């Protein structure tokens, strides 16, 4: 099929992903409410939509697979079959498979054809078993007889047509049919038969009482002629007869409806055997079940050890997921047209302001200064609004990242033999698309952890007077300029002694160290740390929490833990709303300008000399209302030349990060402004204490202070020269 529609493929992938989510969520909900017909209809519609649209792009594997799902769903919604756990499970597995099929047409990734084939068989079996026998060999479609008269040259047909009375009521117009026939050849001897016309008084003006006879001379096939009557043929009295050139006998060629032959790709051998009645479906399924995988055969032949095969399989899985991750990275974004319209309006305003400014600039006099300033304010407002709008285009509700969890938790609870309910809230909280895409994995890890390690088995919970069903709560909300996401469970809480023992064993801390709880919990984020006694299928391979922390930090966020023994654990992720722009406080040290993220600033003070103490091994400390906070001289960190070296004359900014505080000494606070972050790593290399750089108003480069990094420097006391 020549396909002008190819340009809409991306739209299809977006839409299919939405439908898949609907199907998956719907199926999960269906397990709770198997009788919910609305829900079934919704699931059916989504599957149907994927099928129809996939077909439009020639994605036959997708269309055919979805068709099988749809058939089963149709039986369910018609009440011909009841929703059972096994059917729900089969449909969920099929949804997964459909996902990979769609992924494969999108990225060319490999498909697990065996799974697809097995599921297809299972779906067919589930649709067939009791309500109807397995689809018998499709009704034979004999090639239309017209093709027998395939000889070239013009032939003449005599056509008699009595259309149905309601022809007009369906918006049909006989004239259109004549026009189309005329296009096929020469239409002659058209006669009108008015014999059925009733008395004038009885005529219903909306009905058709007429019949026609005509002769058509054409080189076209009879099927082509029939197609002119496509929409009325079944309801008309229609005869098309071929007139022999000699005008002797008319040969009837009319054949019963030859609905367009189904175009299906070749069926697997087993299917054909079943359809032709050689083997029964059960026999086929048994035979398929005996098929061995390559790995199994190799192991049996002692060509490879099970470990080697397992390793190879793992490698394959990794490669597959890596390839998929890479390919799905760049996707389109769907934007509400209203957002675009507003943006266009704003750009319009910007253009007006710009033209007013250039007009002013071309003949500027000093007395017009107030006008100039007014225009500048307007320009600033335009820019800020456009920036906000553009950012909002990238903002998506976090619900899209949460959507995978109901399924995940269902599978986890089945695997771990625990009863778990998942409570989601704050799904509508919006954040940057990139952030949403990147937090999926860390969140999955935290949820897995909670399900596996956090929550206790039902018996243990009952013993401890807790409800049998454990709860995992995912919540998202705005807090200041950041997004907080919490993963909370009501399980056993972190085990202080176990973590300490493990940390000592791993040499992360020494036995003599006295640590507070808040210092102990973050140890689980250290690489290689896992206290799970046995490695389970779900989590606890000793990798993970450190990756979670690293991923979140790469996004400019933080992770913190709150836990209470016997009551549960809460992981809190704090993430920036967007990655590109931050609100910053510009400060001056000597001639250099630095930017400090506004969010981390608690207050600024001008200290009295007696408040500052020097402690051996810990550097300088400052007493802020009774609490000693480490003090860092920014000029020492960046080895620059300051105006003041005496803290009494300088200004101290009290910064906070992850619950810890540090006082940073600068010469002067310049003001607040939004800055665009440029990555240091991408353009230069990572520099301790610097989160990035930005271009300042005067064109110079300013460094954005990494508060966490500065705190580390304060703690370990090794300033790094920039």
């Amino acid at each position, binding site marked *: 099929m020549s396909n002008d529609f190819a340009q809409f493929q991306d739209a299809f992938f977006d839409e299919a992903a939405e439908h898949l989510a609907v199907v998956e969520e719907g199926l999960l909900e269906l397990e709770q409410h198997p009788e919910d017909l609305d829900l079934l209809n919704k699931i059916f*519609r989504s599957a*149907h939509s994927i099928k129809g649209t996939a077909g439009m792009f020639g994605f036959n594997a997708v269309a055919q697979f979805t068709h099988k799902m749809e058939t089963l769903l149709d039986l369910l919604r018609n009440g011909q079959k009841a929703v059972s756990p096994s059917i729900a499970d089969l449909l969920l597995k099929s949804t997964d498979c459909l996902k990979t099929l769609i992924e494969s047409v999108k990225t060319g990734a490999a498909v697990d054809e065996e799974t697809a084939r097995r599921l297809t068989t299972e779906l067919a079996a589930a649709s067939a078993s009791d309500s109807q026998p397995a689809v018998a060999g499709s009704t034979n479609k004999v090639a239309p007889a017209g093709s027998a008269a395939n000889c070239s040259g013009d032939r003449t047909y005599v056509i008699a047509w009595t259309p149905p009375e309601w022809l007009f009521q369906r918006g049909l117009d006989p004239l259109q049919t004549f026009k189309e026939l005329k296009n096929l050849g020469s239409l002659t001897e058209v006669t009108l038969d008015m014999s059925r016309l009733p008395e004038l008084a009885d005529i219903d003006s909306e009905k058709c009482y007429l019949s026609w006879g005509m002769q058509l001379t054409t080189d076209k096939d009879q099927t082509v002629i029939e197609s002119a009557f496509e929409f009325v043929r079944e309801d008309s009295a229609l005869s098309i007869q071929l007139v022999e050139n000699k005008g002797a006998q008319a040969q009837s060629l009319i054949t019963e409806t030859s609905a367009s032959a189904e175009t299906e790709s070749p069926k697997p051998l087993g299917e054909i055997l079943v359809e032709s009645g050689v083997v029964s479906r059960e026999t086929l399924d048994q035979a398929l079940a005996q098929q061995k995988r390559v790995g199994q055969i190799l192991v049996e032949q002692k060509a490879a050890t099970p470990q080697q095969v397992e390793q190879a399989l793992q490698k394959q899985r990794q490669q597959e997921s890596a390839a998929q991750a890479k390919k799905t990275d760049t996707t389109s974004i769907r934007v509400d047209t209203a957002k675009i319209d507003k943006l266009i309006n704003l750009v319009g305003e910007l253009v007006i302001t710009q033209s007013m400014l250039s007009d002013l600039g071309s003949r500027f006099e000093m007395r017009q200064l107030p006008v100039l300033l007014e225009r500048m304010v307007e320009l600033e407002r335009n820019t800020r609004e456009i920036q906000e709008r553009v950012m909002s285009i990238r903002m998506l509700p976090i619900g899209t990242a949460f959507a995978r969890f109901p399924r995940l938790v269902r599978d986890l609870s089945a695997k771990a033999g625990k009863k778990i309910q998942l409570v989601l809230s704050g799904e509508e909280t919006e954040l940057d698309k990139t952030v949403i895409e990147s937090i999926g994995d860390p969140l999955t890890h935290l949820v897995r952890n909670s399900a596996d390690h956090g929550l206790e088995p039902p018996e243990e919970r009952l013993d401890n007077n807790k409800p049998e069903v454990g709860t995992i709560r995912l919540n998202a909300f705005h807090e200041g300029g950041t997004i907080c996401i919490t993963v909370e469970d009501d399980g056993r809480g972190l085990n202080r002694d176990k973590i300490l023992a493990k940390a000592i064993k791993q040499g992360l801390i020494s036995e003599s160290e006295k640590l507070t709880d808040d210092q102990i919990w973050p140890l689980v984020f250290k690489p290689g740390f896992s206290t799970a006694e046995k490695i389970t299928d779900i989590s606890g391979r000793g990798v993970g929490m450190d990756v979670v922390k690293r991923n979140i930090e790469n996004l400019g966020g933080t992770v913190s833990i709150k836990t209470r023994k016997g009551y549960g654990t809460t992981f809190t992720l704090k993430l920036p709303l967007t990655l590109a722009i931050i609100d910053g406080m510009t400060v001056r040290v000597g001639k250099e300008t630095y930017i400090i993220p506004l969010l981390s600033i608690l207050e600024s003070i001008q200290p009295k000399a007696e408040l500052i103490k020097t402690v051996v091994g810990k550097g300088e400390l400052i007493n802020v209302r009774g609490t000693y906070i480490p003090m860092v001289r920014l000029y020492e960190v960046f080895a620059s030349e300051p105006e003041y070296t005496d803290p009494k004359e300088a200004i101290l900014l009290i910064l906070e990060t992850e619950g810890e505080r540090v006082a940073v000494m600068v010469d002067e606070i310049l003001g607040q402004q939004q800055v665009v972050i440029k990555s240091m790593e991408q353009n230069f290399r990572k520099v301790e204490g610097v989160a990035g750089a930005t271009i300042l108003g005067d064109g110079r480069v300013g460094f954005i202070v990494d508060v966490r990094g500065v705190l580390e420097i304060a703690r370990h006391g090794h300033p790094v020269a920039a």
Partner: protein
Amino acid sequence: MGKTALIVDDSPTMRQMVAFTLTNAGFTVVEAQDGKDAVNKVSGGAKMDIVVTDLNMPEMDGIALIKELRRLSAFKFTPILMLTTESAAEKKQAGKEAGATGWIVKPFNPEVLLKTIAKVLPA
């Protein structure tokens, strides 16, 4: 040509494709995402030269929409094409009974779409 077409489909992708094809063929296109939306969009008395509608839709499905449109005087004789899938023979019958002029079987390509429209749309 200056003809108008109403396109009803809950799939934005399908809608886009049909709208794209018809717009290129000179139609002015009105899109609706389901039957209810479509009825709302024409209830002000708007006239259309042709309607192309999907059958499976939330809110109001294609069959109900066709019935509803045939009740309106502006749509009494308007050609209405339904988009069906090959498996839906009984749907086709239900559509005809509701007053559908004809059908286009998915998957189709732009030529088939335009040809079928030409078949039912008086020039």
